[in-house]
Protein backbone atom coordinates (compact mmCIF):
# COMPACT_ATOMS: atom_id res chain seq x y z
CA UNK A 1 0.00 0.00 0.00
CA UNK A 2 1.12 3.54 -0.67
CA UNK A 3 1.58 6.02 2.14
CA UNK A 4 -0.62 9.14 1.89
CA UNK A 5 2.27 11.35 0.70
CA UNK A 6 3.17 8.78 -1.97
CA UNK A 7 -0.43 8.51 -3.12
CA UNK A 8 -0.58 12.30 -3.24
CA UNK A 9 2.61 12.50 -5.29
CA UNK A 10 1.38 9.98 -7.84
CA UNK A 11 -1.91 11.87 -8.18
CA UNK A 12 -0.21 15.19 -8.74
CA UNK A 13 2.20 13.59 -11.21
CA UNK A 14 -0.52 12.12 -13.38
CA UNK A 15 -2.76 15.14 -13.39
CA UNK A 16 -0.13 17.46 -14.84
CA UNK A 17 -1.81 20.70 -13.84
CA UNK A 18 -2.97 22.22 -10.58
CA UNK A 19 -5.39 19.98 -8.70
CA UNK A 20 -8.03 21.20 -6.22
CA UNK A 21 -7.24 20.01 -2.72
CA UNK A 22 -10.79 18.96 -2.15
CA UNK A 23 -10.64 16.54 -5.09
CA UNK A 24 -7.47 15.03 -3.68
CA UNK A 25 -9.04 14.61 -0.24
CA UNK A 26 -11.96 12.84 -1.76
CA UNK A 27 -9.87 10.34 -3.72
CA UNK A 28 -7.53 9.70 -0.82
CA UNK A 29 -10.51 9.42 1.50
CA UNK A 30 -9.00 11.72 4.08
CA UNK A 31 -10.01 14.92 5.83
CA UNK A 32 -8.47 18.35 5.53
CA UNK A 33 -6.11 17.79 8.42
CA UNK A 34 -4.76 14.48 7.13
CA UNK A 35 -4.19 16.08 3.78
CA UNK A 36 -2.25 18.94 5.33
CA UNK A 37 -0.09 16.42 7.10
CA UNK A 38 0.52 14.49 3.88
CA UNK A 39 1.40 17.71 2.08
CA UNK A 40 3.93 18.74 4.66
CA UNK A 41 5.56 15.30 4.66
CA UNK A 42 5.70 15.44 0.88
CA UNK A 43 7.22 18.91 0.98
CA UNK A 44 9.98 17.64 3.16
CA UNK A 45 10.65 14.48 1.28
CA UNK A 46 10.90 16.33 -2.02
CA UNK A 47 13.64 18.55 -0.67
CA UNK A 48 16.70 18.26 -2.86
CA UNK A 49 15.01 15.92 -5.34
CA UNK A 50 14.55 18.36 -8.23
CA UNK A 51 10.77 18.43 -7.77
CA UNK A 52 8.55 20.58 -5.58
CA UNK A 53 4.89 20.89 -4.65
CA UNK A 54 3.37 24.32 -5.13
CA UNK A 55 0.55 24.93 -2.70
CA UNK A 56 -2.05 27.64 -2.89
CA UNK A 57 -5.13 28.08 -0.77
CA UNK A 58 -7.17 25.74 -2.92
CA UNK A 59 -4.80 23.90 -5.20
CA UNK A 60 -1.75 21.70 -5.38
CA UNK A 61 0.66 21.34 -8.27
CA UNK A 62 3.81 19.36 -8.90
CA UNK A 63 6.61 21.30 -10.58
CA UNK A 64 10.32 21.18 -11.00
CA UNK A 65 12.19 22.76 -8.09
CA UNK A 66 13.44 26.34 -8.53
CA UNK A 67 17.04 25.09 -8.29
CA UNK A 68 16.39 22.93 -11.34
CA UNK A 69 15.35 25.84 -13.52
CA UNK A 70 18.67 26.24 -15.22
CA UNK A 71 19.13 22.59 -16.17
CA UNK A 72 15.48 22.28 -17.20
CA UNK A 73 15.85 25.30 -19.43
CA UNK A 74 18.95 23.81 -20.99
CA UNK A 75 17.12 20.55 -21.57
CA UNK A 76 14.13 22.27 -23.17
CA UNK A 77 16.38 24.19 -25.49
CA UNK A 78 18.23 21.07 -26.53
CA UNK A 79 14.93 19.29 -27.11
CA UNK A 80 13.52 21.96 -29.39
CA UNK A 81 16.75 22.53 -31.28
CA UNK A 82 17.03 18.84 -32.10
CA UNK A 83 16.30 17.65 -35.60
CA UNK A 84 12.78 16.33 -36.00
CA UNK A 85 14.18 13.02 -37.19
CA UNK A 86 12.43 10.32 -39.13
CA UNK A 87 9.53 9.86 -36.72
CA UNK A 88 8.91 13.59 -36.39
CA UNK A 89 9.03 14.27 -40.11
CA UNK A 90 6.74 11.35 -40.89
CA UNK A 91 4.20 12.45 -38.34
CA UNK A 92 4.26 16.07 -39.49
CA UNK A 93 3.97 14.95 -43.11
CA UNK A 94 0.98 12.74 -42.31
CA UNK A 95 -0.73 15.76 -40.76
CA UNK A 96 0.33 18.30 -43.40
CA UNK A 97 -0.95 16.18 -46.27
CA UNK A 98 -4.11 15.21 -44.45
CA UNK A 99 -5.42 18.04 -42.29
CA UNK A 100 -7.59 16.89 -39.41
CA UNK A 101 -5.93 13.51 -38.94
CA UNK A 102 -6.44 11.83 -35.58
CA UNK A 103 -3.72 10.05 -33.68
CA UNK A 104 -5.16 6.68 -34.61
CA UNK A 105 -5.11 7.58 -38.27
CA UNK A 106 -1.53 8.80 -38.11
CA UNK A 107 -0.52 5.62 -36.28
CA UNK A 108 -2.20 3.57 -38.96
CA UNK A 109 -0.53 5.40 -41.82
CA UNK A 110 2.89 5.09 -40.19
CA UNK A 111 2.39 1.60 -38.80
CA UNK A 112 3.76 2.65 -35.42
CA UNK A 113 2.58 4.57 -32.40
CA UNK A 114 2.95 8.34 -32.82
CA UNK A 115 2.10 9.77 -29.39
CA UNK A 116 5.62 10.85 -28.53
CA UNK A 117 6.12 12.53 -31.91
CA UNK A 118 2.82 14.35 -31.58
CA UNK A 119 3.82 15.74 -28.23
CA UNK A 120 7.08 17.03 -29.60
CA UNK A 121 5.43 18.64 -32.62
CA UNK A 122 2.84 20.32 -30.39
CA UNK A 123 5.52 21.64 -28.09
CA UNK A 124 7.47 23.02 -31.02
CA UNK A 125 4.44 24.83 -32.36
CA UNK A 126 4.49 22.91 -35.62
CA UNK A 127 1.04 21.38 -35.23
CA UNK A 128 -2.07 22.17 -33.25
CA UNK A 129 -4.82 19.91 -32.00
CA UNK A 130 -8.53 20.64 -31.87
CA UNK A 131 -11.34 18.63 -30.39
CA UNK A 132 -13.54 16.90 -32.89
CA UNK A 133 -16.92 18.66 -32.57
CA UNK A 134 -18.76 15.33 -32.85
CA UNK A 135 -16.56 13.44 -30.40
CA UNK A 136 -14.80 15.52 -27.78
CA UNK A 137 -12.36 12.84 -26.77
CA UNK A 138 -10.96 12.81 -30.27
CA UNK A 139 -8.30 15.36 -31.20
CA UNK A 140 -7.79 16.35 -34.82
CA UNK A 141 -4.41 17.76 -35.78
CA UNK A 142 -3.37 20.31 -38.35
CA UNK A 143 -0.13 22.04 -39.30
CA UNK A 144 0.30 25.57 -37.94
CA UNK A 145 0.52 28.65 -40.15
CA UNK A 146 3.99 29.34 -38.73
CA UNK A 147 5.14 25.92 -39.88
CA UNK A 148 3.68 26.50 -43.34
CA UNK A 149 5.44 29.84 -43.57
CA UNK A 150 8.67 28.15 -42.57
CA UNK A 151 8.12 25.65 -45.37
CA UNK A 152 7.70 28.55 -47.76
CA UNK A 153 4.07 27.91 -48.68
CA UNK A 154 0.86 29.70 -47.79
CA UNK A 155 -1.40 26.66 -47.80
CA UNK A 156 -0.94 22.92 -47.63
CA UNK A 157 -2.09 22.45 -51.21
CA UNK A 158 1.15 24.08 -52.32
CA UNK A 159 3.26 21.32 -50.80
CA UNK A 160 5.06 19.16 -53.38
CA UNK A 161 2.97 16.33 -54.88
CA UNK A 162 0.06 17.36 -52.68
CA UNK A 163 -2.78 15.86 -54.72
CA UNK A 164 -1.14 12.52 -55.21
CA UNK A 165 0.12 11.99 -51.65
CA UNK A 166 -2.97 13.30 -49.91
CA UNK A 167 -5.15 11.03 -52.00
CA UNK A 168 -2.98 8.03 -51.22
CA UNK A 169 -3.03 8.83 -47.50
CA UNK A 170 -6.78 9.12 -47.64
CA UNK A 171 -6.99 5.67 -49.15
CA UNK A 172 -4.80 4.20 -46.46
CA UNK A 173 -6.99 5.77 -43.78
CA UNK A 174 -10.06 4.27 -45.41
CA UNK A 175 -8.49 0.88 -44.75
CA UNK A 176 -8.46 1.79 -41.07
CA UNK A 177 -12.18 1.71 -40.76
CA UNK A 178 -12.11 -1.75 -42.25
CA UNK A 179 -9.37 -2.71 -39.86
CA UNK A 180 -11.25 -1.33 -36.87
CA UNK A 181 -14.12 -3.61 -37.69
CA UNK A 182 -11.74 -6.48 -37.83
CA UNK A 183 -10.15 -5.61 -34.53
CA UNK A 184 -13.34 -5.01 -32.66
CA UNK A 185 -14.78 -8.29 -33.81
CA UNK A 186 -12.06 -10.36 -32.21
Amino acid at each position, binding site marked *: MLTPPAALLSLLF*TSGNAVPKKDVSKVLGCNHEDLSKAISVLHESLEGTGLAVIETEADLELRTAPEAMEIVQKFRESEVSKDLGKAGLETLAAIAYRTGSTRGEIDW*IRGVNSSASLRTLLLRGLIEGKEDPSDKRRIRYSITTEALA*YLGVTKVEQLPRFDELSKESEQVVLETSKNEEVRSST
Partner: protein
Amino acid sequence: MDTLSRKTGFSIKTPSYEGPFEVALDLIEARKLLVNELALASITDDYIQHVRRQEAFPVEETANFIQIAATLILIKSKSLIPDLVLTEEENADVEDLKNRLMIYERIRNASRELSSIFGKQIMISAGQKKPVPFFAPARDLSANALTDALARILEAREEVEQLPEARVKPMVTIEEMMNELAARVQKAINISFKEFSGTAKEKVDVIVSFLALLELVKQGAVAAEQFEIYGDIRISHTDTGMPRY
Protein backbone atom coordinates in the same frame (compact mmCIF):
# COMPACT_ATOMS: atom_id res chain seq x y z
CA MET B 1 -11.52 -20.58 -33.20
CA ASP B 2 -11.32 -17.54 -35.26
CA THR B 3 -14.72 -16.15 -35.95
CA LEU B 4 -13.19 -13.33 -37.87
CA SER B 5 -11.72 -15.46 -40.59
CA ARG B 6 -15.08 -16.93 -41.30
CA LYS B 7 -16.59 -13.53 -41.64
CA THR B 8 -13.99 -11.91 -43.80
CA GLY B 9 -12.43 -14.91 -45.46
CA PHE B 10 -8.90 -14.05 -44.45
CA SER B 11 -7.26 -14.47 -41.13
CA ILE B 12 -3.59 -13.81 -41.63
CA LYS B 13 -3.99 -10.73 -39.48
CA THR B 14 -5.11 -12.59 -36.42
CA PRO B 15 -4.11 -16.21 -36.56
CA SER B 16 -5.92 -17.89 -33.74
CA TYR B 17 -5.49 -21.46 -34.87
CA GLU B 18 -2.72 -23.31 -33.13
CA GLY B 19 0.70 -23.22 -34.73
CA PRO B 20 2.67 -26.40 -35.36
CA PHE B 21 4.88 -26.06 -32.27
CA GLU B 22 1.95 -25.16 -30.12
CA VAL B 23 0.13 -28.35 -31.06
CA ALA B 24 3.17 -30.51 -30.35
CA LEU B 25 3.86 -28.80 -27.04
CA ASP B 26 0.24 -29.08 -25.93
CA LEU B 27 0.37 -32.82 -26.52
CA ILE B 28 3.64 -33.15 -24.61
CA GLU B 29 2.39 -31.04 -21.71
CA ALA B 30 -0.85 -33.00 -21.54
CA ARG B 31 1.29 -36.08 -20.92
CA LYS B 32 3.36 -34.21 -18.33
CA LEU B 33 6.52 -35.08 -20.24
CA LEU B 34 9.67 -33.14 -21.00
CA VAL B 35 10.68 -32.34 -24.53
CA ASN B 36 12.80 -35.35 -25.53
CA GLU B 37 12.72 -38.15 -28.07
CA LEU B 38 10.64 -40.40 -25.89
CA ALA B 39 8.01 -37.70 -25.55
CA LEU B 40 8.10 -36.94 -29.25
CA ALA B 41 7.65 -40.60 -30.14
CA SER B 42 4.68 -40.77 -27.81
CA ILE B 43 2.84 -37.84 -29.36
CA THR B 44 3.35 -38.84 -32.98
CA ASP B 45 -0.01 -40.46 -33.55
CA ASP B 46 -1.95 -37.76 -31.76
CA TYR B 47 -0.12 -35.06 -33.63
CA ILE B 48 -1.01 -36.64 -36.92
CA GLN B 49 -4.58 -37.13 -35.78
CA HIS B 50 -4.72 -33.48 -34.87
CA VAL B 51 -3.38 -32.35 -38.19
CA ARG B 52 -5.86 -34.57 -39.96
CA ARG B 53 -8.76 -33.19 -37.98
CA GLN B 54 -7.74 -29.65 -38.74
CA GLU B 55 -9.37 -28.84 -41.97
CA ALA B 56 -8.50 -25.21 -42.07
CA PHE B 57 -4.87 -24.16 -42.00
CA PRO B 58 -3.29 -21.19 -43.56
CA VAL B 59 -1.94 -22.92 -46.61
CA GLU B 60 1.60 -21.82 -46.07
CA GLU B 61 1.68 -23.49 -42.68
CA THR B 62 0.54 -26.86 -43.97
CA ALA B 63 4.06 -27.59 -45.10
CA ASN B 64 5.36 -26.84 -41.62
CA PHE B 65 2.87 -29.17 -40.02
CA ILE B 66 3.77 -31.95 -42.39
CA GLN B 67 7.47 -31.41 -41.99
CA ILE B 68 7.08 -31.78 -38.26
CA ALA B 69 4.77 -34.77 -38.64
CA ALA B 70 7.38 -36.42 -40.84
CA THR B 71 10.12 -35.84 -38.29
CA LEU B 72 7.89 -37.24 -35.56
CA ILE B 73 7.26 -40.34 -37.69
CA LEU B 74 10.97 -40.69 -38.08
CA ILE B 75 11.45 -40.56 -34.32
CA LYS B 76 8.68 -43.02 -33.73
CA SER B 77 9.86 -45.41 -36.43
CA LYS B 78 13.29 -45.32 -34.93
CA SER B 79 11.92 -46.10 -31.48
CA LEU B 80 9.96 -49.05 -32.81
CA ILE B 81 12.47 -50.38 -35.32
CA PRO B 82 15.93 -50.16 -33.88
CA ASP B 83 17.40 -51.26 -37.20
CA LEU B 84 16.34 -48.06 -38.85
CA VAL B 85 19.48 -46.00 -39.13
CA LEU B 86 18.93 -42.30 -39.54
CA THR B 87 21.09 -40.28 -41.86
CA GLU B 88 23.08 -37.40 -40.54
CA GLU B 89 20.57 -35.02 -41.98
CA GLU B 90 17.66 -36.80 -40.39
CA ASN B 91 19.40 -36.80 -37.05
CA ALA B 92 19.89 -33.09 -37.50
CA ASP B 93 16.16 -32.70 -38.23
CA VAL B 94 15.36 -34.54 -35.01
CA GLU B 95 17.76 -32.37 -33.03
CA ASP B 96 16.42 -29.28 -34.69
CA LEU B 97 12.84 -30.13 -33.78
CA LYS B 98 13.81 -30.85 -30.18
CA ASN B 99 15.73 -27.59 -29.88
CA ARG B 100 13.05 -25.46 -31.41
CA LEU B 101 10.38 -27.03 -29.26
CA MET B 102 12.46 -26.31 -26.19
CA ILE B 103 12.96 -22.70 -27.19
CA TYR B 104 9.31 -22.32 -28.01
CA GLU B 105 8.42 -23.85 -24.66
CA ARG B 106 10.46 -21.18 -22.88
CA ILE B 107 8.88 -18.39 -24.84
CA ARG B 108 5.46 -19.78 -24.20
CA ASN B 109 6.24 -19.94 -20.50
CA ALA B 110 7.54 -16.41 -20.66
CA SER B 111 4.40 -15.25 -22.41
CA ARG B 112 2.27 -16.87 -19.71
CA GLU B 113 4.26 -14.96 -17.13
CA LEU B 114 3.66 -11.75 -19.05
CA SER B 115 0.00 -12.50 -19.39
CA SER B 116 -0.28 -12.82 -15.61
CA ILE B 117 1.08 -9.31 -15.05
CA PHE B 118 0.16 -7.40 -18.22
CA GLY B 119 -2.15 -4.50 -17.47
CA LYS B 120 -2.50 -5.47 -13.80
CA GLN B 121 -0.42 -2.64 -12.36
CA ILE B 122 0.06 -0.09 -15.07
CA MET B 123 2.59 2.59 -14.33
CA ILE B 124 0.82 5.70 -15.53
CA SER B 125 2.52 8.44 -17.46
CA ALA B 126 2.90 12.05 -16.49
CA GLY B 127 -0.12 14.26 -16.93
CA GLN B 128 0.01 16.56 -19.90
CA LYS B 129 1.06 19.98 -18.78
CA LYS B 130 -0.67 22.54 -20.87
CA PRO B 131 2.11 23.03 -23.36
CA VAL B 132 3.41 26.52 -23.81
CA PRO B 133 4.36 26.11 -27.42
CA PHE B 134 6.83 28.42 -28.95
CA PHE B 135 7.69 28.11 -32.57
CA ALA B 136 10.81 25.99 -32.94
CA PRO B 137 11.34 24.58 -36.41
CA ALA B 138 14.22 22.23 -37.12
CA ARG B 139 17.16 22.19 -39.46
CA ASP B 140 15.94 19.01 -41.12
CA LEU B 141 12.48 20.45 -41.79
CA SER B 142 11.67 21.43 -45.36
CA ALA B 143 8.79 20.90 -47.74
CA ASN B 144 10.78 18.28 -49.62
CA ALA B 145 11.75 16.46 -46.45
CA LEU B 146 8.05 16.18 -45.64
CA THR B 147 7.18 14.95 -49.11
CA ASP B 148 9.90 12.34 -48.95
CA ALA B 149 8.87 11.18 -45.50
CA LEU B 150 5.26 10.61 -46.50
CA ALA B 151 6.13 9.08 -49.85
CA ARG B 152 8.46 6.70 -48.06
CA ILE B 153 5.88 5.41 -45.60
CA LEU B 154 3.23 5.06 -48.25
CA GLU B 155 5.64 3.16 -50.43
CA ALA B 156 6.72 0.95 -47.54
CA ARG B 157 3.07 0.10 -46.88
CA GLU B 158 2.62 -0.98 -50.46
CA GLU B 159 5.68 -3.18 -50.29
CA VAL B 160 4.43 -4.83 -47.14
CA GLU B 161 1.10 -5.48 -48.74
CA GLN B 162 2.56 -6.92 -51.88
CA LEU B 163 5.17 -9.14 -50.31
CA PRO B 164 3.93 -12.61 -49.62
CA GLU B 165 4.11 -13.48 -45.96
CA ALA B 166 7.31 -15.20 -44.97
CA ARG B 167 7.21 -18.93 -45.29
CA VAL B 168 9.45 -21.32 -43.52
CA LYS B 169 10.61 -23.45 -46.36
CA PRO B 170 10.85 -27.18 -45.82
CA MET B 171 14.39 -28.46 -46.20
CA VAL B 172 13.55 -30.91 -48.94
CA THR B 173 10.37 -31.30 -50.82
CA ILE B 174 7.89 -33.31 -48.90
CA GLU B 175 7.42 -35.83 -51.64
CA GLU B 176 11.12 -36.48 -51.87
CA MET B 177 11.32 -36.99 -48.18
CA MET B 178 8.30 -39.23 -48.00
CA ASN B 179 9.37 -41.44 -50.87
CA GLU B 180 12.71 -41.98 -49.36
CA LEU B 181 11.36 -42.49 -45.90
CA ALA B 182 8.87 -45.03 -47.23
CA ALA B 183 11.61 -47.05 -48.83
CA ARG B 184 13.76 -46.91 -45.75
CA VAL B 185 11.05 -47.88 -43.31
CA GLN B 186 10.06 -50.74 -45.56
CA LYS B 187 13.60 -51.95 -45.75
CA ALA B 188 14.09 -51.64 -42.03
CA ILE B 189 10.92 -53.56 -41.37
CA ASN B 190 12.13 -56.30 -43.68
CA ILE B 191 15.41 -56.47 -41.87
CA SER B 192 13.68 -56.55 -38.50
CA PHE B 193 11.35 -59.20 -39.74
CA LYS B 194 14.19 -61.34 -40.90
CA GLU B 195 16.42 -60.88 -37.92
CA PHE B 196 14.07 -61.07 -35.02
CA SER B 197 10.42 -61.31 -34.52
CA GLY B 198 9.17 -58.22 -32.81
CA THR B 199 5.50 -58.24 -32.03
CA ALA B 200 3.38 -57.81 -35.07
CA LYS B 201 1.48 -55.09 -33.28
CA GLU B 202 4.45 -52.74 -33.34
CA LYS B 203 4.95 -53.12 -37.03
CA VAL B 204 1.31 -52.59 -37.75
CA ASP B 205 1.57 -49.50 -35.62
CA VAL B 206 4.31 -48.06 -37.77
CA ILE B 207 2.50 -48.84 -40.94
CA VAL B 208 -0.73 -47.29 -39.73
CA SER B 209 0.97 -44.05 -38.74
CA PHE B 210 2.79 -44.08 -41.95
CA LEU B 211 -0.31 -44.42 -44.06
CA ALA B 212 -1.91 -41.64 -42.11
CA LEU B 213 1.02 -39.45 -42.91
CA LEU B 214 0.91 -40.32 -46.57
CA GLU B 215 -2.67 -39.20 -46.61
CA LEU B 216 -1.64 -35.94 -45.06
CA VAL B 217 1.01 -35.43 -47.64
CA LYS B 218 -1.58 -35.89 -50.30
CA GLN B 219 -3.74 -33.25 -48.70
CA GLY B 220 -0.75 -31.02 -48.25
CA ALA B 221 0.32 -31.48 -51.82
CA VAL B 222 -3.07 -30.29 -52.96
CA ALA B 223 -2.82 -27.33 -50.69
CA ALA B 224 0.71 -26.54 -51.75
CA GLU B 225 -0.32 -26.66 -55.37
CA GLN B 226 -3.11 -24.25 -54.71
CA PHE B 227 -0.72 -21.97 -52.99
CA GLU B 228 1.51 -21.86 -56.03
CA ILE B 229 -1.33 -20.98 -58.32
CA TYR B 230 -2.69 -18.26 -56.11
CA GLY B 231 0.77 -17.27 -55.04
CA ASP B 232 0.09 -13.61 -54.57
CA ILE B 233 -3.26 -13.89 -52.93
CA ARG B 234 -3.02 -14.19 -49.22
CA ILE B 235 -5.63 -16.81 -48.67
CA SER B 236 -5.25 -18.57 -45.42
CA HIS B 237 -7.60 -21.49 -45.58
CA THR B 238 -7.76 -24.37 -47.90
CA ASP B 239 -11.27 -24.32 -49.12
CA THR B 240 -12.94 -26.99 -47.12
CA GLY B 241 -16.35 -27.79 -45.85
CA MET B 242 -15.88 -25.51 -42.92
CA PRO B 243 -19.11 -24.14 -41.60
CA ARG B 244 -19.73 -20.55 -42.49
CA TYR B 245 -21.69 -18.19 -40.37
